[in-house]
């Protein structure tokens, strides 16, 4: 067990009091960055890069990766409190987290989110520790057809779950696809649906849509229902943490499944955002009480948070071994590695052993430290809901505006955010589901690009999606999931008829005295 020896050495590197201090600072900054939609993990990492030139590379990367953990933790907070996802991968957390907060269970939702994040990350670190060389090669098998298959799978695991009218669900999803198509087409470099407007060249970033639809839209609805947040009377002491912990072991199956989805999506690398959606969709399908999903089911918080963190953590593996960053934050971290003269790639694990294992050890420690820190802040965050609405509402609007502006540093996005807010208000009241819109906006572009890349490679033949075992089995699984509602409905009808027949057969007897 050479790995364990290496890891222990790594702990020795990471466990100096200096490095622990850097971890603490990193986590706190990361949480702050995750909470404010205007600051992405990329900002924090980028800004601190210059400061870290005076440290040893190991200490610096420990601190920077702790910002990354902190941001992952923090993203859930605004999703739960205000329905504003601070980071893309927290969108799925709003589906059940925000209803929980409205019911006065914000503390419970946050505890569940943080704990699940920790579990997801921890499992992912275990995977990195023991399977790194093995799984690193796996990502190489992924060409465009495989990427498309993964995105298709995400779709299929998510759709077929809407309670809203079918036509509205389709319309909502199509709006998402249409918005995703606006701007420069990456495959041909053509401009789509820009109609000569410069501002539309950059397309619609999904964070702007989400901040408008969810954040501002929610404020407008709250205004209509009276000037107050629901759920202001939530408990705000630390006991809620222990009480929630008592409930969580029940969801071990969801956790495990979400970890698997997350690790797999992180390594391949599909990314944390699709992972969280896929995991939410799967949890809902497999759950016994699927009708409470979207109305404040704690399982609906556990699933996406676990998967997002597992994916976010395991995404560091392809970054370190292959040099492909899974997110903008990871991209900046990667830039940092290069500036310190550390060459990410297959040889990093051989040549810079001390650094790699120090980093992996810091992932263990960083997550434990992170969990402890964020859990102690739960009551403070929950207390924000007690601030009167007429103070907090304009502050949220300001934060939404900053969040929208900083996506591209562009005023036009702020205007679009307000437009999306109005759309969100109408859609929510007319029962157009927003989740399909957001999912389509996130995945539409990626899926289309992967599909067309595959077509270029195969010379226009769709058989490429069944050309090898890997892509074929992912596509197969996706189709099974796509047809599952039909199959289960069919099964249900068949059972129903059987039951009816049985009843019919039994009824004469039932009629007997």
């Amino acid at each position, binding site marked *: 067990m050479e790995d364990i020896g290496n890891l222990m050495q790594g702990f020795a590197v990471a466990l100096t009091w200096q490095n622990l201090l850097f971890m603490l600072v990193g986590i706190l900054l990361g949480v702050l960055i995750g909470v*404010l939609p*205007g*600051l992405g993990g990329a*900002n*924090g990492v980028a*800004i601190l890069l210059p400061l870290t030139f005076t440290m040893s590379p190991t200490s610096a990367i420990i601190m920077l990766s702790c910002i990354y953990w902190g941001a992952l933790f923090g993203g859930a907070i605004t999703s739960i409190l205000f329905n504003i996802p601070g980071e893309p991968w927290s969108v799925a957390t709003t589906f059940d987290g925000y209803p929980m907060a409205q019911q006065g269970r914000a503390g419970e939702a946050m505890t569940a989110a943080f704990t699940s994040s920790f579990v997801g990350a921890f499992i992912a670190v275990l995977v990195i520790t023991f399977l790194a060389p093995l799984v690193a090669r796996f990502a190489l098998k992924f060409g465009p057809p495989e990427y498309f298959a993964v995105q298709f799978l995400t779709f299929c695991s998510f759709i077929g779950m809407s309670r809203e*009218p079918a*036509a*509205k669900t*389709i*319309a909502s999803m*199509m*709006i998402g*696809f*249409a918005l995703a*198509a606006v701007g420069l087409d990456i*495959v*041909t470099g*053509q*401009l*789509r*649906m820009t*109609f000569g407007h410069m501002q539309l060249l950059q397309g619609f970033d999904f964070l702007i849509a989400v901040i408008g639809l969810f954040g501002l839209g929610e404020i*407008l609805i709250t*205004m*209509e*229902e*009276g*000037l107050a947040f629901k759920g202001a009377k939530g408990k705000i002491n630390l006991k809620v943490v222990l009480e929630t912990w008592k409930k969580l072991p029940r969801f071990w199956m969801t956790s495990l499944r979400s970890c698997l989805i997350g690790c797999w999506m992180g390594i391949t690398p599909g990314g944390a955002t699709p992972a969280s959606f896929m995991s939410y969709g799967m949890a809902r399908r497999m759950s016994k009480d699927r009708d409470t999903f979207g109305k404040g089911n704690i399982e609906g918080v556990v699933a996406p948070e676990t998967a997002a963190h597992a994916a976010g953590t395991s995404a560091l593996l392809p970054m370190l071994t292959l040099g492909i960053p899974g997110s903008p934050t990871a991209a900046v971290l990667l830039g940092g590695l290069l500036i310190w003269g550390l060459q990410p790639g297959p040889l990093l694990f051989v040549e810079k052993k001390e650094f790699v294992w120090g980093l992996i050890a810091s992932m263990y420690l960083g997550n434990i430290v992170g969990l402890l820190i964020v859990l102690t802040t739960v009551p403070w965050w929950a207390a924000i809901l007690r601030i*009167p609405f*007429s*103070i907090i*509402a*304009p*502050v949220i*609007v*300001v934060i939404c*505006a*900053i969040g929208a*502006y*900083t996506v591209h540093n562009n*005023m036009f996005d*702020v*205007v679009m955010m*307000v437009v999306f*807010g*109005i759309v969100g*208000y*109408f859609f929510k*009241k*007319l029962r157009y589901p927003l989740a399909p819109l957001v999912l389509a906006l996130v995945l539409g572009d990626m899926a*289309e690009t992967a*599909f*067309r890349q*595959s*077509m*270029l490679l*195969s*010379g*226009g033949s769709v058989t490429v999606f069944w050309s090898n075992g890997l892509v074929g089995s992912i596509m197969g699984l996706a189709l099974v999931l796509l047809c599952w509602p039909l199959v289960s409905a069919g099964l249900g009808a068949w059972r129903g008829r059987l039951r009816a027949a049985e009843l019919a057969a039994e009824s004469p007897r039932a009629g007997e005295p």
Partner: protein
Amino acid sequence: MDQEAQGGAAATRGGLSTRWVELIVALLICLGGAIVVFDSVRIGAKWASDGPESGYFPFLTGACLLLSGAWIAGAVLVRWKRLASSVFVEWTALKPVLEMLLPTIAFVVAIKLIGIYVASAIFIGAFMVWKGRYRWPLTVSVSLCVPVAMFLLFEVWFLVPLPKGPLENMLGY
């Protein structure tokens, strides 16, 4: 919740009619679909020898959008009579919504003119006085502290430049 069920009680108080809102939104979706279809055909929406062209998927998207919009509109028209009493939003409830929305729009316009920090201070302060009826000391302290904290956080600490106006220019930023 079902709006048709609420409709009966709300109708007496008056408001924006659900059926009209439904219909207009559905028609707007159709319009959006038509625009997408139109632009996709312009850039080429066929399946070329090397796979789909740029407009292929947007064309399908637009077509689906058009159809689903028409479907929704049709469904509304079918139930037109039954929806007569349903109210989308009562006038009394629309007022607070506009009271939030219009200042927000004014705020966004103000960002362009005077920068986000001054605009935020005015926006937060005005809203607190208007809707919350807070006393001046609290209002002033909140509406000054938030922009100052933002300024320190974004401009000074994280070096993220946000839109600035004449005041910041005067102060040398």
